[in-house]
């Protein structure tokens, strides 16, 4: 079984601040990490390696410092990691991103044979579109299961799994080859073993440029991206709630809360209905 995991390096969102004057992310000095959702894809890949003896490649498109994310990914005990990096890939929207990743996957196929399963995170903590996994599936012509929450069974040519919908869950059979995008519910990423960690610290990822993957510069990066960012907005800062009672007895606090609530029409309506229905005393 051959598996490719797509990972993205993102700013550590626990550290991200937004400059409220310019509406830009303050990226300076913010450390990068593997996109949180991708951690669950890596964990699944590690399990596929253990249970199904899969050969696993990790791939990312990004700037040279994305090497660090790839090294971290190797600590899950996976086989190889590939960085797709070239000026020609810069400024990509999701269409161009999936093109480059697709070409990278094709190149991996040349080395290890047909890829059976491609794993991606549900969405990226910064870009947040959730389009990359589905886009890669389309380009590869693979079946797609997005928002995977659990995997029941992996058979020779299909996987039985559960995916999350807006409301509830759906159990489906997915034909292999396939692309799965996974949610945090799927599993708990491991704390790497020391031998795997040491291997990852010493590991040097493979780096491919546009010529290595035979990418058409017109389809990759800025020139391959029909989308233009016209404007970005952030929701206004949330106002803190009102405190209606401070250091008062529970009785007074409750009374004040009730008075506040009664200002809402829906609650007044219920009050009114009570007259009709009668109190339950």
């Amino acid at each position, binding site marked *: 079984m051959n598996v490719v995991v797509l990972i993205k390096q993102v700013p550590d969102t626990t550290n991200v601040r937004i400059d409220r004057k310019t509406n830009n992310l303050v990226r300076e000095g913010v450390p990068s990490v593997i996109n949180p959702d991708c951690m669950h894809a890596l964990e699944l890949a590690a399990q596929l390696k253990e249970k199904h003896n899969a050969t696993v490649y990790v791939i990312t498109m990004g700037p040279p410092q994305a090497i660090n994310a790839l090294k971290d990914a190797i600590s899950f005990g996976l086989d190889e990691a590939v960085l797709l990096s070239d000026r020609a890939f810069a400024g990509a929207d999701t269409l161009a991103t999936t093109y480059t990743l697709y070409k990278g996957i094709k190149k991996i196929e040349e080395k290890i044979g047909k890829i059976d399963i491609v794993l991606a995170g549900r969405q990226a903590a910064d870009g947040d579109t959730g389009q990359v996994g589905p886009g890669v599936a389309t380009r590869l012509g693979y079946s797609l299961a997005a928002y995977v929450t659990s995997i029941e069974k992996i058979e020779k040519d299909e996987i039985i799994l559960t995916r999350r919908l807006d409301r509830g869950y759906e159990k489906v059979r997915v034909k292999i080859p396939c692309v799965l995008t996974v949610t945090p519910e799927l599993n708990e990423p491991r*704390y*790497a*073993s*020391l*031998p795997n*960690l*040491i291997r990852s*610290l*010493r590991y040097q990822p493979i780096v491919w440029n546009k010529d290595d993957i035979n990418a058409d510069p017109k389809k990759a990066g800025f020139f391959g991206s029909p989308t233009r960012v016209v404007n970005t907005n952030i929701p206004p800062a949330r106002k803190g709630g009102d405190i209606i009672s401070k250091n008062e007895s529970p009785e007074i606090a409750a009374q004040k809360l009730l008075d506040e609530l009664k200002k809402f029409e829906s609650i007044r309506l219920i009050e009114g209905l009570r007259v009709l229905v009668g109190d339950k005393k």
Partner: protein
Amino acid sequence: MIKFDVVVIGGGPAGLSAALTLAKSGMEVAVVEKGEYAGSKNVMGGVLYTHPLLEIVDNAVERMVNEKAVERSVIEQNMFLLGNGSVLKVGHRNPEWKNTPNAFTVLRAKFDQWFAKIVEEAGVLIITKTKVEDFIWENGKIKGVITSRPEGEIYCKAVIIAEGVNPILTMKAGLRKEDIKPNMAAVAVKEVIDMPEDIINTAFNVDSKSGVTYEILGEWSEGMFGMGFLYTNKDSISIGCGVLIEELKHRNIKPYQLLDNLKNHPIISDIIGEYKNNVKEYLAHLIPEGGYYSIPQLYGDNVLVCGDAAMLVNSIHREGSNHAITSGRLAAETLVDAFNKGEISKKTLKSYVERLKESFILKDLEKYKDLMPTMEKNQHFIELYPSLFNRLATRFLTVDGTPKTDVEWQIIDSLRNERGLIGLGMDALKLWKGVR
């Protein structure tokens, strides 16, 4: 099985210095660091002296400056005695330090990462996000370490403990009987306050490469013995203070209350002005203050302790990182000699202590060994003198038509009333004995 010649526990200045020295002699070294990266959890004021680095890193000063590992070269150092709303100060400025830097202000997260990179370049493997939890023992000798990771054993021929102020593994190695006591460590809190580069340059009268330091005694510490500090970074300042845990416990005061006192003192408040609330980072850490008497057994059969773990800090002179770097190097050099002799045992590692005695480290710690106990026993050193000296200075410098002879008598009278001339003489003697 994972094997190295030497495992170093802790990626602070002591551990990194030891690892670098070992690697330069061709040894296979792993540093195990529990933090996210070297320096991620470490705190310092921080004034970093250049001398110990020059011994182990080629072109250390140029590299530190060019690679932005340090903030500003210290060209002026001041001692402030804060009185009630006033200050008595002594300082020294020497622009020559621009050409031959003596010390730099640093932010540890940056400096330690730089140092770690140099150490990695020398071939050391730094294993981060991994904690050493115990030792592997065989026939009463340490054979390796057990880390927090699955399959986490590392076997080695010797271990250097550079775990910092909490001597957990030093105790497990049998080199220290009991944990540090509340009178052996200070809690220090520190804030990094954003302040634009040009404002710092104007406020402290320096250019962008140069910086100043203030050590601050007196009013803010509510009578407790503690050291406050304010150092200039590139575009921020570090301000903080430290007081013995015992005194804080005894007085039931929280460290941040003291830091607030310091920041709100009119003299300090004037310096940092409106930037007071631009707090970018808040940090807290322990500083070993036990000095000479708290030093553990420094070596065992195939184990050595260095840096804060060995309590090698001269708190009077806020020197810790230089002791850490130097003791790390000396521990490593001792080990290299032992490897060359083919015998790693108490016998061959004993010379570590001799090396420390020959260096400034134990000489200085011995010199000051009684100063802290003297200060602790004589509360009035801190309670009385800073404010008294401030009042005397004000009296001396206020010109109001009183003849100078009368002013002098007024001063002598206040000294007599507030401390007594014999008391004064005794204090001078005690202080002299403390630093002799």
